[in-house]
């Protein structure tokens, strides 16, 4: 018996929601970043599952996933550089404490 595609999509939806919860509930910038990574992983599960079940001969889904990997890596590099920069400037990476910009 093969696994129906819906199961994979359900796992992806769960992972996406968990990641979103992490993003919304964390105070720490790196914690938020981890939530975002979970969301991107959910996207990739979706893409690969759709590729496998709907379009396995062409490689569109896999190519898309590879670009997601690439961008995720670039994003994390930039994001962590920003985290380090803000830590140098402000000695904290708790988002609520980073509050120079309010009138």
């Amino acid at each position, binding site marked *: 018996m093969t696994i129906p595609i819906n199961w994979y999509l359900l796992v992806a939806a769960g992972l996406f929601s968990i990641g979103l919860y992490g993003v919304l509930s964390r105070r720490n910038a790196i914690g*938020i970043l981890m939530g975002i990574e979970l969301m*991107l992983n959910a996207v990739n599960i979706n893409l690969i599952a759709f590729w496998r079940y709907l*379009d396995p001969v062409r490689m569109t889904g896999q*190519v*898309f996933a590879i*670009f997601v990997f690439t961008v995720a890596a670039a994003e994390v590099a930039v994001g962590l550089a920003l985290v380090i920069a803000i830590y140098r*400037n402000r000695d904290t990476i708790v988002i609520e404490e980073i509050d120079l910009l309010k009138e």
Partner: protein
Amino acid sequence: MQIIIFFLPQLVLLLSMVLVFGIDLVGSNEKKWLPYLALAGSVISLAISLYLFGWVEVTEQTVLGGMIAIDSFALFFQIFAALVAGIIILLSMEYMDERSSSKGEYYSFILLASFSISLLSVSADLIMIFIAFELLSISSYILTGFLRNDGKGSEAAIKYFLYGSIASAMMLYGMSLLYGTTASTNLGQIAQNLSGIDSSLRWVVYPALVLLMVGFGYKTVAVPFHQWSPDAYEGAPTPVTAFLAVGSIGGGFAILIRVMLTGLPDFQVDWVALISALSILSMTLGNLVAISQKNIKRMLAYSGIAQAGYILIGLVSWGGWQAGNVFDGLSGILIYLLVYLVANLGAFAVVIAVENKIGSNQISDYAGLIKRSPLLAGTMVVFLLSLIGIPGTGGFVGKLMVFGAAMNMEYYFLAVIAIINSVIAGFYYLNVIRYMFFQPLDEPAREKIQLTRSLSSVIVLTCAFTLLMGIFAQPFIQFVQASLGIVAN
């Protein structure tokens, strides 16, 4: 061959970015002429795209595996991007000289961000859209946090980054659902596959649509995806703020229009509802919050949100191409973007000139500007009036086209809300004018403001164009309508 010629403006931008970056690396001495090299690149790119405008046929054609759409709609945004790049480089010269030592990187990132705007406008495939979108985002984050010793800049950058990554993750999820329903990432193919879709799969398109809108809404600063913008605008280096306020929004609208019109035409009813809600929210909230702002960059951020709301009306009230219809939603959007570009960049030029002199962005510090620099105060009035939409300025033409389109399509409630909002907007724009002209000036701050050549040329040029577009609007409208052949078909 046609492909390469079509790509020339972008290639020039990319090439000049590589040149600026590479030349900056070689040798250790500071090169004063680097900004001019970057400027030359954007001017050449602008010239080529203007030349190409008559050359490219208005055909619906995608090349390179369906990744790239060749049409004059994209050419319009190539002109837009080159224009933005050139003006931002001019705005940055004095500002960056004082604040940063890595100028080569700065100008190459400006060129790269502009390149990604034009790349976004030619993208016709979800993968291409995603990668161009991220290129624009990542170069914007870096530009925002470019002055790394500035606590505000880093803070702005990290907030921008976090909001941006969340938005792009959600947009990606939407894209993956869209891929799942159509087994394709090509916009044309998606539209084709969606047209005969069974009702169960239709249900997947709705969340996909909403999630896609999160991404595009974030780029076009539509409420409720706007939270990043006031902070990012305030904290970023002011020329970068100008770029975010004009360039990045332009890129967002380019891709929003292309995805909705070529990818999801069958769901027009649904996205029209969604976008008109966003539009109403953006106009209202942007204007109401802008009234209480004391920092001019923040005020311009909220006004930008409101302007994005007006522009969205154009997309809502697009009802297909009809011959002889002057008030067309899409040409309204494009003309509005042009008007907004000159007026907003002009306003930012004034803000930068003032900031270079007095180091402050508080509106109260604009008191008595007329005495310190009549040119600045006078042109600022023109820009602000144009942002309000007073007849005689370009802003009026833009608003007329967009609101007229809404009336044409019988979206009276939208037009009414927009007009009420324009009136509200008058308050805070006029408030700045009141400070500049009628507020008494403190004695010690009577010093005149000297303008550098780069800044004054930007200010004069943008002011001239703002007035020109207000008075002789016809050629501009024709230009915009000429660039709409394909999307409107």
